[in-house]
C-alpha cells in the first residue's frame, strides 16, 4: 500500500512539475476496491469508492504539491521520497518509513495479457549472501574543489568546465562557417570582442552593418590540452596495455576533445601511412582502436575529419601487406576490425550528399573484381563489403561466390604456388563461408541440398551448405553471438619500440602557430632537430618550464582575494606537475632509435632494427599500396610532402 502511495505521489508530482494539466485525473475506483480488500474490507459500495477515490486523489495531489516545495528548496530537479516524507510531516501525518530508494521510481512496470501492472520489485535476499559479500566501499565524503569558471570573462577550456562547443555547434561551425561564434562565449556579437580588448571594442558598434566575414578559425590548445594530447597519443601507441585502455576510454568518453580532434585525426592518418609502410601491425591495430574510440565519443563531430580517417581505415582493410610475416601474423583480425569500423562509419556518416557507403562499396568491388589483386587485399575487400550488411552480401558477394570459389580451388587444390597465397585463400574461404552462410540461411528456402548448392555456388557450395545448416540450427537456438566490438590481438607481441619523443613532437612542431601559451610566450619555431642532440626537444618545452616556474610559487587556487586572477596562475600549476615526465621522455626516445627524425614528418616512427635493411624496398611499395586503397579522387589522401620514405634514411 505504501509503495503505491509513494509511487503515486512521485508520479503526480513529476506530472505537476512537467506542467501537465491534471484536472480530471483521479484514481480508478478499482484501486480503491483493491486497497479496501487488502485491509479486509470486502464489498465496498461503488458510491463509497467514488467518494473515496476523489478524496484520496485530492489529498495525494495536495501532498505532491507540498513535496514539490521541498524539492525546490532542496535545489534539486528530482523529487525524492524524503520530500514526500517532509510533506507528510507538514500535514502532521507520520511519514512512511523505510522507503528510501536510490532509484528514482522504485517500481517496475509489466504488461501482458491485456493487463498492465505496476509492481514493486522486492527480491528475496539470502541473508548469508549478504553476510558473505564483502563490504562495499565506503562512500566518499563531501569535499570541496575549486576551479576557474571564467577568467576575466573568458571561460578556460579545462576538464572542469563543460566542452566549449557541443556537437551541434561543432556542426554549425563546420557547415556554416559564417556564423561562427567563438567557443565559450555567448552568441552575442558584443561579447566577442571582450577578450581581445580595445581594438575589437571599438568596432563593436559598427559590426552590425558590415558583412560578416568568415573569421579565421583558430585552434588554440591550452597547455593542458597539449599535455593531454601528448599523454593520450603516447598511451595509445605505447606498450602498456592498461594505460592504453585508459587512454582509449578517455577518448571515447571525454566531452572536451573537439579542439584536439584535428590533431587526433592527423595523428591517425599519418600513423597509418607510416606504419603500413613498415608493416607494423601492432601500431596499426592501436590506431584503429583510436578510431573506434573517437567514433564512440558522442560529443565529437567527426564528419569534418572523415577525409583523413576513412582512407586510414580503408588502408588497414585492403592493404597488400600489413605485417612483417604475413604467414604467421594475424593481420586478418585487423582487417576484420577495420572493416567493422568502416561499416560503422558508413552507417553513421553516410548521407545522400557524401555517399560514403556507395563510394566505399565501389572501391571494394573494383579491387575485388581485379584478377591481379592479392589474396590479402581480396580478403579485405570482401570483409569490408560483408560488414556493410546482408543487402550488400546478397547483391554483391553471393553472385560472385562461384567465381571466387574457383579461384580458391585453384590455389587450394592446384600446385603449391606459395604458402602465403594458400593461407590467403583459406582465409578468404572461411570469411566467405562465415558471412554468406547466415545470409543464405535467411534468403534461401529449405531444404539445403548439397548438390543444389554445388550447382549454385560452385566449389564453395558443399561447405556453404553445411555452414548454412549450422547457421539455421544456431538461429533456431537463438544463440548467435558475434562479438564485434573488441579486437583481440592474437599476434605475438612484436618486438618494437615506439619512439615517444617522436610522438610528442608530432603535434607541436607540425603546426606551431596553433599553440598559444597564456603567458604570451611563443613556442619555438619548427626546425628539424638533429636527433643526436637532445636539446631541440628540450627547448620545445622550455616555455612551459619557465611559465611553470613563474607560477610555482602560486599554489593552487585557494582563496582568491589574495591573488589577482590571471590565466597563468590558473592553468600552470597543473603543468608543473605533469611537466616532469615530459622532459624525461626525450632521452628515452633518443638512444632507442637510430633513424633521423625530421620533426615535421613523423607521427609514429618505429623501426625494428631488423627491418631497417628492407626499408628501401618497402618504402617504394608504399605509394602503390596507398593508391590501391585510396578512394575516389575526392577522398584521396592528399599529401603535400612526399611519403616518409624519401626523407627517411636508415642508419
Amino acid at each position, binding site marked *: 500500500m505504501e509503495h503505491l502511495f509513494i509511487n503515486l505521489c512521485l508520479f503526480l508530482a513529476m506530472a505537476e512539475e512537467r506542467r501537465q494539466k491534471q484536472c480530471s485525473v483521479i484514481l480508478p475506483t478499482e484501486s480503491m476496491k483493491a486497497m479496501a480488500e487488502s485491509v479486509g474490507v470486502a464489498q465496498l459500495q461503488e458510491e463509497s469508492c467514488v467518494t473515496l477515490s476523489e478524496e484520496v486523489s*485530492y489529498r495525494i495531489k495536495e501532498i505532491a504539491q507540498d513535496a514539490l516545495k521541498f524539492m525546490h528548496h532542496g535545489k*534539486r530537479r528530482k523529487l525524492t521520497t524524503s520530500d514526500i516524507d517532509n510533506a507528510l*510531516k507538514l500535514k502532521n501525518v507520520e511519514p512512511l518509513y523505510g522507503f528510501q530508494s536510490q532509484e528514482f521510481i522504485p517500481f517496475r512496470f509489466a504488461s501482458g495479457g491485456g493487463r498492465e501492472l505496476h509492481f514493486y520489485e522486492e527480491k528475496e535476499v539470502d541473508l548469508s549472501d549478504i553476510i558473505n559479500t564483502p563490504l562495499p566501499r565506503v562512500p566518499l565524503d563531501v569535499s570541496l574543489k575549486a576551479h*576557474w569558471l*571564467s577568467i576575466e570573462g573568458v571561460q578556460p577550456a579545462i576538464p572542469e568546465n563543460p566542452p566549449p562547443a557541443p556537437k551541434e555547434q561543432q556542426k554549425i561551425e563546420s557547415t556554416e562557417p559564417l556564423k561562427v561564434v567563438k567557443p565559450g562565449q555567448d552568441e552575442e556579437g558584443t561579447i566577442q570582442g571582450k577578450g581581445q580588448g580595445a581594438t575589437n571594442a571599438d568596432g563593436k558598434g559598427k559590426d552590425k552593418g558590415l558583412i560578416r566575414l568568415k573569421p579565421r578559425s583558430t585552434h588554440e590548445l591550452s597547455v593542458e590540452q597539449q599535455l593531454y594530447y601528448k599523454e593520450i597519443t603516447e598511451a595509445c601507441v605505447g606498450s602498456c596495455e592498461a594505460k592504453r585502455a585508459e587512454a582509449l576510454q578517455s577518448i571515447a568518453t571525454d566531452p572536451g576533445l573537439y579542439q584536439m580532434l584535428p590533431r587526433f585525426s592527423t595523428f591517425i592518418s599519418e600513423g597509418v601511412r607510416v606504419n603500413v609502410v613498415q608493416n607494423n601491425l601492432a601500431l596499426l591495430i592501436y590506431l584503429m582502436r583510436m578510431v573506434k574510440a573517437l567514433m564512440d565519443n558522442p560529443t565529437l563531430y567527426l564528419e569534418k575529419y572523415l577525409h583523413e580517417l576513412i582512407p586510414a581505415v580503408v588502408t588497414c582493410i585492403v592493404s597488400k601487406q600489413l605485417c612483417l610475416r604475413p604467414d604467421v601474423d594475424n593481420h586478418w583480425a585487423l582487417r576484420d576490425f577495420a572493416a567493422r569500423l568502416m561499416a560503422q562509419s558508413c552507417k553513421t556518416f553516410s548521407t545522400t550528399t557524401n555517399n560514403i557507403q556507395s563510394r566505399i562499396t565501389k572501391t571494394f568491388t573494383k579491387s575485388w573484381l581485379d584478377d591481379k589483386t592479392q589474396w590479402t587485399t581480396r580478403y579485405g575487400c570482401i570483409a569490408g563489403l560483408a560488414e556493410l550488411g546482408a543487402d550488400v552480401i546478397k547483391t554483391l558477394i553471393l553472385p560472385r561466390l562461384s567465381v571466387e570459389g574457383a579461384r580458391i580451388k585453384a590455389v587450394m587444390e592446384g600446385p603449391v604456388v606459395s604458402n602465403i597465397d594458400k593461407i590467403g585463400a583459406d582465409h578468404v574461404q572461411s570469411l566467405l563461408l562465415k558471412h554468406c552462410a547466415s545470409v543464405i540461411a535467411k534468403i534461401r528456402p529449405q531444404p539445403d541440398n548439397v548438390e543444389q548448392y554445388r550447382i549454385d555456388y560452385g566449389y564453395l557450395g558443399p561447405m556453404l551448405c553445411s555452414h548454412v545448416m549450422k547457421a539455421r540450427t544456431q538461429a533456431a537456438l537463438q544463440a548467435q553471438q558475434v562479438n564485434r566490438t573488441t579486437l583481440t590481438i592474437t599476434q605475438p607481441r612484436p618486438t618494437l619500440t615506439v619512439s615517444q619523443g617522436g610522438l610528442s613532437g608530432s603535434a607541436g612542431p607540425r603546426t606551431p602557430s596553433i599553440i598559444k601559451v597564456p603567458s604570451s610566450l611563443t613556442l619555438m619555431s619548427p626546425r628539424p632537430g638533429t636527433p643526436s642532440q637532445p636539446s631541440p626537444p628540450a627547448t620545445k618545452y622550455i616555455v612551459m618550464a619557465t611559465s611553470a616556474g613563474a607560477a610555482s610559487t602560486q599554489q593552487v587556487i585557494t*582563496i582568491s*582575494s589574495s591573488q589577482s586572477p590571471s590565466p597563468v596562475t590558473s592553468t600552470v600549476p597543473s603543468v608543473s606537475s605533469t611537466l616532469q615526465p615530459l622532459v624525461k621522455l626525450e632521452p628515452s626516445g633518443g638512444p632507442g632509435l637510430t633513424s633521423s627524425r625530421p620533426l615535421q614528418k613523423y607521427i609514429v616512427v618505429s623501426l625494428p632494427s631488423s627491418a631497417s635493411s628492407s626499408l628501401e624496398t618497402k618504402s617504394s611499395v608504399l605509394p602503390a599500396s596507398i593508391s590501391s586503397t585510396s578512394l575516389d579522387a575526392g577522398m584521396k589522401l592528399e599529401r603535400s610532402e612526399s611519403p616518409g620514405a624519401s626523407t627517411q634514411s636508415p642508419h
Partner: protein
Amino acid sequence: MAAVQGSLVESVDKKDIKTEPSEDGGGNNNNANDGKILSPSPAPTTPAEGNSTAAGTSVDQQTLLAVLQFLKKNKLSESVDILRREAGLPEDSLDSKGGDSSGEATGDAGRSADADGADASSLLSRVTVSSSAVAPAPTKAPSEDQPDVNVVLSAYSQQGDPALYEVYYKGLKKFIESVLDCHRAELSQVFYPLFVHMYLELVYNSHENEAKAFFDKFSGDQECYYEDDLRVLSSLTKKEHMRGNETLLDFRTSKFVLRISRDSYQLLKRHLQERQNNQIWNIIQEHLYIDIFDGMPRSKNQIDAMSGSLAGEAKREANKAKVYYGLLKEPEIELPLDDEDEEAENEEGKPKKKKPKKDSMGSKSKKQDPNAPSQTRIPLPELKDSDKLDKIMYMKEATKRIRLGPDNLPSICFYSFLNAYQGLTAVDFTDDSSLIAGGFADSTVRVWSVTPKKLRKVKSAADLNLIDKESDDVLERIMDEKTASESKILYGHSGPVYGISFSPDRNYLLSSSEDGTIRLWSLQTFTCLVGYKGHNYPVWDTQFSPHGYYFVSGGHDRVARLWATDHYQPLRMFSGHLADVTCTRFHPNSNYVATGSSDRTIRLWDVLSGNCVRIFTGHKGPIHALAFSPNGKFLASGATDGRVLLWDIGHGLMVGELKGHTDTIYSLKFSRDGEILASGSMDNTVRLWDAMKAFDDLETDDFTAATGYIHLQDNSQELLLGTYTSKSTTVIHLHFTRRNLLLTAGSYNP
C-alpha cells in the same frame, strides 16, 4: 485612496472614518499589511476582512467573539485580555498603543530582555498569532480558526442559479472583447479573479458538476502565469476541501487587487449596471479591490509585467511609505590609513583611488545622506576591537579592488561540492571569503576553510586555565592546535538545512532547517549555542544583519521573523505573505528586511515598526533569490520563472527585467561596487549583467506617472555580459570577494 473611493463611495467622511481604524486594525489581521489599506467597498458586509475592517458590523463582532472563544479555549488569557481591550476601546487609543509599542521596540530592541519580551508578546497578540500557542497551526490561527473560516466562506453562500454562471462569465467576456483596445487589456485583468471566485462559489454551493464544467470551459482563457494556481484550484472540487486549503483561503481573505484606469472602470461599471448583472458586480465588490487611477489605461505589456502574484498587484498606497534606503555612515575608525566611507560613494566614481585626500573624504562622510535612516533608528551593536580590525582589513582590501565593467568582467572561481549526492541545500561565504559553509539534506552543516589557515577549536576549559592570560598572543594560545582541520561538521538539526548565514564577525553561523529551528553555532568551539524555536514549520531561509546581532528568518508558516541573537523569542514578526516566505535579505543599512515568497510577491519590511513598506509584484513564480545593491537603492529578485527583476526601492517601482535563465534562479549578487549583477541558476549557468547600465538608463520622469509603472525596455540581451556554463553543477550561491572576484558554489551532480 481618494481615487478609489471617489468612484465607489460617494460619502467622503465615511472614507475618513474607515481609513483611521485601518491603520491599526491591520494588526489584528493575519495580513498586517493588507489590512492597512482597507476595502472601501460600500457593501454592508465585508466578511473576508472581518476582524480588520471597521468594527461595528455584526459580522466583525462575530468574528472577534469567535477568536476570543478560541483563545479562551487554549487558555491564552493574556491575549484574550488584549484582544478584548483592543476591540472594546475606541480607535484612538488603539492607535496610540500601537505607536507606543513600536516606540518601545525602537528604544529597547536588543537592550533589555524584559521590554523586548513584552514587546514581542504585544506584537504577537496584535497579529493574533502566537508562536508559543499549542494550536495545531499557530501561525495561521485566524484563518484556520473554525468560526472564522465559516465566516470567510459564507461569503459564497449567496445563491444564484449555477447554470447562469457560465452565461454571466461569457457575457462579460463578450463585453470585454468588444470594448476599445485601450481598455481591453485593463479590463481583462478582471477575468482571473472573477473566474476563481465564481468557481469557488460553485464549489462552495456544492454544484460540483457545474463547477467542473465551468472550469473546463474557461480555465484555458486565463493567463499562463496563473497556471500553478489553477492547478491547485482544479484539484479542489468539494466544499470539504476548501476548509483546509490555505492557498484558497488566502484568496478569500485577501482581496485581489487590480489597477484599472478610471475610464475603463466606468466602462465596466456601466456595463454591469445596465445588464443588471448583480452576480458579477457582487463578486467584484466583495472580493476584488479595484485601485483606480486617473490617466491613460495601461497596455497589455505593462499589466503583464506587474501581475502574476497570488493576490494581484500591490496597491499603490502600499508602496507610498517613505523608505530610508540610504546607507548608514560608516563609523570612524582610527587607522594607520585614513578612514573613508567607501560604500556610500559607490556611485561617484573611484573614491578609494583617492585615498590620500583625507580631508575631502572626511567631510564627505560626515554629510548625512538625506535618504539614510538616522544612525540610531534601530540600535546597532557597538563595534568591538576585532570588528575595527576587520574594517581596516576591509578597507585595505577595497583599495585593491578591481573596477568591474562591461569591458572588465570578473573572474569566476567555482567551488564544487563533490560527492554531495544532490544533498547540498545551502551555501554561504564569509564576507572576507575565508570560510565557506554548506547546509546539507542530511541535516549536517559543514564549514570549510578555503585559506591555508585551518579551523581550530578553542581549548577545553581546563586547558584554558593554564594559559597565560597576559600574553600578547593569548588569542592564538587559546586555540587547540590538535583540532586543526580543513573542515568541521556541525551536527544538531534533524532535517535538511535550507538556510545558512555567517555572522559578519565570523564568530557565528546560523542555520535554518526543516525541523523548524534556527541554530546559532559558534565558530570558536564549533558547537551549537542556541536553537531558536518559533517557526513550527520548515524554515526556508535565514540571514544575519550586515551589522550582526539581528537576524531574520522566514519559512513555511508565511511569517518572517526578526530575531536578536541574545533573545530566544523573535523581536518582530512580519506577516502578510500569502504563502511560504522563501527567502529573506537584510538591507545594507539593517533597517529593512526584504522577503520573497511563494505568493510571488516581494515585501520590504521596516525593522523598526514591523510594517510592510513595499510590495513588489511581477514575478510569475516563487521567488528564490534576493539581493540589494550595495548602495541600498535597488533590489534584484530571481524566481522560478527564470527572470531577474530589478526594483527601485525608493520609488517602489519595477525598473528592469533580465531574461535569459531557463530555470530557477537560486542566487543573485551585486559586485562590491554595484556595477555587475551576477545570477546563478539551476540551469547550471552563471550570468553577468550590466547593473550600472540597467540603473543608469532609468527614465526618472516616469516615476511620477500615475500608473506607477516605468517603461521597461526589452534590453536583457544588451545587459547580459556573459554566460558561463558549469558542468552539471547547479549554481546555488554567489559571492563577490572584497576585491571583486566572483566566487560561486554548487554541488556537482553527475
